């Protein structure tokens, strides 16, 4: 109730300020305000229908008009809006550098950020440098990261213990050899597009980097020729060059193509995200909940300070656009997104990881895979993937594809990464 009143007060304050400065244009003067929301619909269509219904029921003065874009096409659709400084009133971006790259498109939340996000389990990925003392540009409501899903039946058929999945790199290599002998793919992988590399990179990087290194990566101050980063690239390369993944990985996407291989029961492992796309649920339905296991990616160096942690990041962040004429209504909507009501919708309809700590625990799914994910996310650390600029993420993905096809050495890959860092507009600024 207090949050609603607070949101109302904030909205009223902003509307008055906007009116005084003469830029309040279309805000709720006559009839309901229609907010255009650009989203890739994390959590699925049903969840977003519920968002629209519930929000509009509680806010009769605001209507939501969703523009839904597939996740992998989102940057290309959003970019022209930002370039032309026109379009939606509220937009989503992944927390971290993707959002910082586009921060000029969003209204900074200022002091309101702390109030809006005070009930969230964690909040920093929407703020510059992961520092809440610096400007923050939006509001998340989900928690995101990468785990290794495994098919217990495939492990059993390969003579492995499904209750003891490989925990180290060497054990994983041995398991892959056994799985291959049993005629299956070890790791279902799709490398087309930026996101698979972007999500898998931190799982290896955690073994070599400290949190300070990850911050240096964000600031563009850690060279890609640094032995630690070269070692990360070498281990990524091993995944495909040692034949642990499907041969066509460079030309297929992870979601849905790579995930399909796993869901068909043709692969032992699939490394992919925990929320937004509800993979544990989809995999559980395809393979049976009792056949689906979840584990942390194998540790290259189990003693490394971050090796046993979870590279986590807030999920999609929603912010109000600079060019919106309906900023007050936009702020009201994103404030609602961070609240308990939406947190519970998120759990019920999207089966995602909620970020609001007041969400009723009884609503959380009882699936063993989901429960295991709760254990893993309990010890979070910074997510190195979201520290990569657009050119770096692109070079990481293309480099991995080329290394897999034998067209590039790891050293050349590191050089390409360094060149990508040097031509990253945002990191040029932060140097």
């Amino acid at each position, binding site marked *: 109730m207090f949050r609603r009143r607070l949101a109302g007060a904030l909205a009223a304050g902003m509307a008055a300020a906007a009116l005084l400065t003469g830029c309040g244009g279309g805000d709720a003067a006559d009839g309901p305000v229609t907010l255009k929301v650009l989203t890739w619909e994390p959590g699925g269509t049903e969840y977003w229908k519920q968002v629209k219904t519930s929000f509009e029921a509680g806010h009769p003065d605001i209507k939501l008009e969703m523009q839904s874009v597939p996740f992998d096409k989102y940057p290309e659709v959003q970019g022209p809006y930002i370039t032309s400084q026109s379009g939606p009133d509220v937009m989503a971006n992944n927390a971290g550098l993707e959002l910082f790259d586009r921060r000029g498109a969003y209204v900074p939340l200022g002091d309101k950020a702390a109030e809006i996000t005070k009930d969230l389990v964690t909040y920093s990925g929407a703020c510059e440098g992961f520092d809440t003392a610096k400007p923050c540009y939006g509001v998340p409501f989900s928690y995101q990261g990468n785990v290794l899903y495994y098919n217990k039946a495939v492990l059993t058929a390969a003579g492995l213990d499904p209750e003891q999945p490989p925990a180290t790199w060497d054990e994983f290599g041995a398991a892959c050899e056994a799985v291959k002998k049993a005629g299956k793919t070890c790791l279902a992988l799709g490398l087309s597009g930026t996101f698979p590399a972007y999500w898998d990179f931190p799982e290896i990087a955690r073994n070599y980097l400290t949190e300070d290194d990850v911050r240096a990566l964000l600031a563009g101050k850690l060279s890609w020729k640094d032995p630690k980063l070269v070692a990360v690239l070498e281990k990524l390369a091993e995944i495909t060059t040692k034949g642990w993944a499907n041969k066509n990985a*460079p030309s297929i996407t992870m979601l849905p193509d790579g995930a399909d291989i796993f869901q068909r029961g043709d692969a032992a492992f699939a490394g992919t995200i925990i929320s937004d796309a509800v993979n544990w649920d989809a995999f559980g339905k395809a393979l049976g909940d009792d056949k689906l296991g979840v584990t942390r990616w194998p540790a290259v160096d189990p003693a490394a300070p971050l090796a046993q942690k979870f590279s986590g990041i807030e999920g999609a962040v929603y912010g109000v656009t600079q060019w919106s004429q309906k900023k007050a209504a936009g702020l009201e909507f994103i404030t609602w997104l961070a609240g308990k009501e939406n947190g519970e919708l998120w759990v019920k309809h999207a089966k995602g990881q909620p970020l609001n700590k007041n969400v009723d625990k009884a609503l959380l799914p009882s699936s063993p895979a989901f429960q295991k994910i709760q254990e893993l996310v309990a010890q979070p650390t910074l997510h190195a993937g979201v520290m990569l600029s657009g050119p770096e993420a692109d070079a990481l993905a293309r480099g991995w594809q080329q290394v897999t*096809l034998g067209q590039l050495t790891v050293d050349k890959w590191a050089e390409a990464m360094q060149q990508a860092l040097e031509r990253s507009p945002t990191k040029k600024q932060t140097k």
Partner: protein
Amino acid sequence: MTISTAPVSEPVAADTPPAPARRPPRPGRAREWWLGAALVLPALVLAVLFKLVPLVRGVVTSTESSSGFGGSEFAGADNYTRMFDDPMVLTSFRNALLVVATLPVWIVLPLVLALLIHQRSPGWKFFRAVYFVPYTIAPIVVGIMFRQILAPDGPLNALLRSVGLQPLAIEWLNGRYSALFSLVAVALWSFFGLGVMTYLAGLATIPEETLEAAYLDGAGFFRRLWSVVVPMLRPTVAYWSVLCASGVLIWLFPLIYALTQGGPGDATMLPEYLVFLTTFQFLDRGYGSAIGIALFVFVAVLSIFSVRHMFTEGTRKPR
């Protein structure tokens, strides 16, 4: 007899032609001129607004350095010199040249098919309709369709294996050259129908008797094609060539977008996709514009000979 005292007028010299009488300007001519101008003006305004202004704006942006979506500053020719050190740019233009090398297929294949339809080969009505169908499918849908068709276990490889062509059942989108030429083949499938229609329109202008006479004189299919059809169809062939030369790179864009995103690695990276990536994903507007201008010059150089030829053909006076 009367004697006149009035001065005698000078006789007009017989060899001096009479001065031409100045015709008063016809009001119809002025009206024609204004009508012509009025008819041309909308097209001119559209061309200036949507072609010239964006081009000039692109040139201006290409001389700016921008950081993210923030402000920009003048960078002179930096973005252009930077291109020479960027392996991705060089690879994208090398790939573009490989695509351009397939142009003869783009020009000849629809011509052959159009001629087969024109001479009413068996099933010509069916094929005339069927050839055009792929062109009516949105390219992005074509891309999604061919993701399935070209998959390692997709229908194409299943067909090849079933007819004993196992060695040809490769991972089409997984190799440096197979991925690029697979994309070109898909684009050709999607657009050749337009070429067939264009040639059919041109063939309709060739008198039946000419082709019949060549046939009666014993000219085979390819002889008729080379010695009769091609010379008489030169303006149409030139038109289709220009369209292909300038369009093939653009036609591939939605397929790259849906099928490969420029990969694997840089195998299917073409300049226009790189412009898109650089501008909207890397947020480097100045550099993206510079690559776009380089692409414009590349396509202009490709098209210039055909355009010149078309202009000459179009302005040649009938004998």
